[in-house]
């Protein structure tokens, strides 16, 4: 019986996050292409309802690995439970979302299973037999490599969030539910979670933010940064500032991006009213995508921006916020 294509779901506050659905959708597609079954694997406690709802996105099988000790994610017990299950069921491939949890779990699981792992993949292709080719960025995206796992099984991969599409759920899907109750020795686990602290309602830390909205001299005043904060809220972004804004006292030095401030590597950097002097670029030029909003078409920032909007930021920024809210709904 051909090995299954598994996608490991990640639960947060009892909900299956979107990246898990992306992985499941991909598992479904690979299963279809190779005549195999796609499975959704969940580890935790009281998983049935959530599992069945998520399975609608393409699972033929639903593995529910349940135990009190597994309710909250911890690396070792989760890796052990999944490892044991995989050793037993011998899937062809195991996909995980490349979230912080997935990135933490996958390498440990791969080591346990003595198999190969391709991390942070942006594409997965398959041949008829099920040998997968993973595409992943290397050197911070300056190059791409295609990787295969020729012999070791299961073929493991983590998928970069927001890259793979989520299919439409099929409510009529009835997955085969497999319940697993692993043995988990309580004292044997080395890590205990004491607490989880949500990042303050204030702001996400600049150097770790994936999205940043940044303001410069064009903002003209401290109050006007409220516009950027609103845009940032819509995106779940951090707010940065150029040296000009910090020097003028509009923002704290903690928020400064640039040569003498912080170096940031977000996926998206929206520079508003920032001319793009070299000292600023030094701090954000490795952003994956740069959007510039400036009323001066000659501003150097447009040379490095992927998308440039020549216009008055006081018009553009609120409009952009509305457009984003529109797109969300």
């Amino acid at each position, binding site marked *: 019986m051909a090995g299954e294509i598994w996608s490991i779901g990640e639960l947060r506050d009892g909900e299956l996050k979107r990246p898990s659905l992306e992985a499941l959708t991909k598992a479904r597609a690979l299963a279809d292409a190779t005549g195999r079954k796609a499975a959704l694997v969940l580890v935790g406690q009281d998983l049935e309802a959530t599992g069945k709802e998520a399975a609608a996105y393409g699972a033929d099988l639903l593995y529910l690995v349940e135990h009190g000790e597994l309710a909250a994610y911890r690396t070792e017990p989760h890796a052990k439970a999944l490892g044991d299950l995989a050793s037993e069921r011998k899937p062809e491939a195991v996909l995980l979302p490349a979230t912080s949890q997935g990135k933490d779990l996958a390498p440990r699981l791969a080591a346990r299973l003595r198999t190969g792992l391709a991390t942070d993949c942006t594409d997965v292709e398959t041949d008829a037999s099920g040998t997968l080719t993973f595409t992943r960025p290397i050197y911070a995206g300056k190059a791409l490599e295609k990787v295969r796992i020729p012999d070791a099984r299961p073929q493991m991969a983590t998928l970069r969030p927001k890259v793979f599409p989520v299919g439409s759920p099929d409510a009529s899907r009835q997955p085969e539910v497999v319940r697993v109750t692993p043995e988990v020795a309580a004292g044997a686990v080395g890590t205990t979670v004491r607490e989880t602290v949500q990042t303050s309602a204030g702001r996400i830390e600049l150097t770790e933010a994936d999205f940043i909205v940044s303001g410069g001299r064009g903002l003209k005043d401290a109050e006007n940064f409220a516009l950027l904060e609103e845009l940032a809220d819509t995106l779940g972004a951090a707010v940065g500032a150029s040296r000009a804004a910090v020097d003028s006292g509009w923002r704290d030095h903690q928020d400064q991006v640039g040569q*003498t401030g912080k170096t940031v590597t977000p996926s998206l950097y929206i520079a508003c009213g920032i001319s793009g002097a*070299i000292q600023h670029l030094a701090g954000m030029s490795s952003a994956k995508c740069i959007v510039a909003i400036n009323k001066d078409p000659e501003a150097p920032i447009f040379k490095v921006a992927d998308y440039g909007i020549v216009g008055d930021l006081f018009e553009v920024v609120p409009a952009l916020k509305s457009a984003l809210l529109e797109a969300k709904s």
Partner: protein
Amino acid sequence: MDLVKETIGAFPTYLILYLSFAAAILLFARAARGKVRLVRRGQPEDRTDHTGRRVTGLFGYVLFQRRLPKYKIAGLMHMLIFWGFLVFALGYAFIVFTGGELQERFAGIGGGAIADVYSTFQELFGVLVVLSVVVAAFRRHVLKVRRLEINRDADLVLLLIFLIMTSHFLTQGLALNLGAGYGWTPVSRALAGLLAGFSDARGLHVGVWWIHLFLIFGFLAYLPASKHLHIFFGPFNVYFRSLRPAGEVPLIDIETAERFGAERIEDFTWKSLFDLLSCAECGRCQDHCPAYDTDKPLSPKRLLIDLKHQLFESAEGDDAGEHAPLAGGAIEEDVIWSCTTCRACQEQCPILIEHVEKIIELRRYLSLMEGRFPNEAKLAFKNLETNYNPWTIGWAERAGWAEGLDLETLGEGGETDVLLWVGCAGAFDDRNKKVVRALVGLARGAGVEMAHLGTDERCCGDPARRLGNEYLYQMLAQENVETLRGRTFNRIVTTCPHCLNTLAAEYPQLGGGFEVVHATSFLDELLREGRIRPTERVQAIVGFHDSCYLGRYNGLYEPPRRVLRSIPGITLREPKRNRRSSFCCGAGGGRMWLEESIGTRINHRRIQQVAETGPEIVASGCPYCLTMFEDGIKETERSDQLRALDVIELLAQSVKPS
């Protein structure tokens, strides 16, 4: 009648005289020797070369008080007091060594002419000195001139000089009443008139004369404890001055040196410590310091005084060893990092104290021994190490500025006439790329054969060296020297004065003796040869700013001005502080790469100064200055009134493309 001789002639009087003189001399010598001993704890340094030049300097700087005239009243005052001192010192020496007055000894010669002349000089200078001292006290206490502190030492010195002079006039007045006196002495005569009534004129004369003498001896004994010691140490300081190029910082032999930089006071060289003892605390250095002017904690004068105190303290408790490092202890770190190495302090100092080198040595200690410096510098250093430029830009992109220019890249073994040294700003900063490109255009038009090093060029190392990271500097410099030696060229032309300075003045330390010329000097030459013709009118009033490393460091004040004057339509309007007293843009000393968070902005201050005379354009010949001015104009909201341009760009505007 030699009243003096009479006064001291008899035993035991002359014994008292000589004993007290000996005592004064001994006290002076002991104290002075103690100070010199402190100085000798410093590191060795050879300042005995070029004796001829050193002696000649004494005439200019000491005898003719070369640096004083520009200070007008204060300068005149000091010159008068100094020359007055020389005049009187001659007379006192005579008394001490011959036991009689100079006038009396030469009374018979030339019909008493020498005696008359000398007495007249004494009278004249006596008056001038008294006036000067009164003016000095007035300036210090009433006008409260900023650089003059009010302290006991200063007041005591002025008082002593005043008393010595007035007691001199009193003795002269009394002597006249006793029938002695030469030359034209109106003041003494007037005093004589006032004192005519005294019965025991002779006794009074003797009394006042002894007071006068003891005042002098007392002053002599007091000298070592006073900043007035500068009269003794100053000339030596001038003699031992640095004859190296202004921009040359001493080389550290990294392989063999055990200590880097100045941790303790003894880590400075003996000459550096000698500076501290020579300082008269005049405060002119502080007056011209851009950091002090913008409320940074750095005062060059204060630094010298604080280091001097450390020197004295180190004498007590001697090898007690556990002295905390100077940097971060007795000398605040902010003081050390605030300096832009602009050299305005050194340019002003009348006795040629070397302030900047002390800052560099303290920075070397922090950078090399502790790895402790402003955070922004860390990134700049890392970038210099890995990508040979202070910005976080890959070294492979260094030649991007030349895109489309078809400028020859000189490989190993290559030959050319002029090697263009681009510098990091020219290579990576968009604004400055324009300046280098303009230069290439002008050179081409003049038919100059020119090539550049492409991606083989690395940062000259100036930021690293000025921030104290000598190790990183040497790594960069050694590579550059090797690269340059692998090519053949007649000379190097660069748009950046910092590169100019480092390549010309400092690379010879590491085996690189190249001829290096600043772009404005180069263009000046081409203009004079008629190879560049500025024909298009550029109507503008231009304030030319003398960049520190072009002007003060390398004496290049006129070539850029000549270039500007060659452009039809340009009117030069000098900022008040120009040439030697130009005011820094704030980016030197590696500060381009640091945050300026204390006080007000140096570049804002300079823009204000330049704007005062109402030019439309502020022109300079330095990429740092250009950057600082662009920022400064924007930040002080003068974008409508003022533009910042490089001299090269202005010339290029005037030259028709060929």
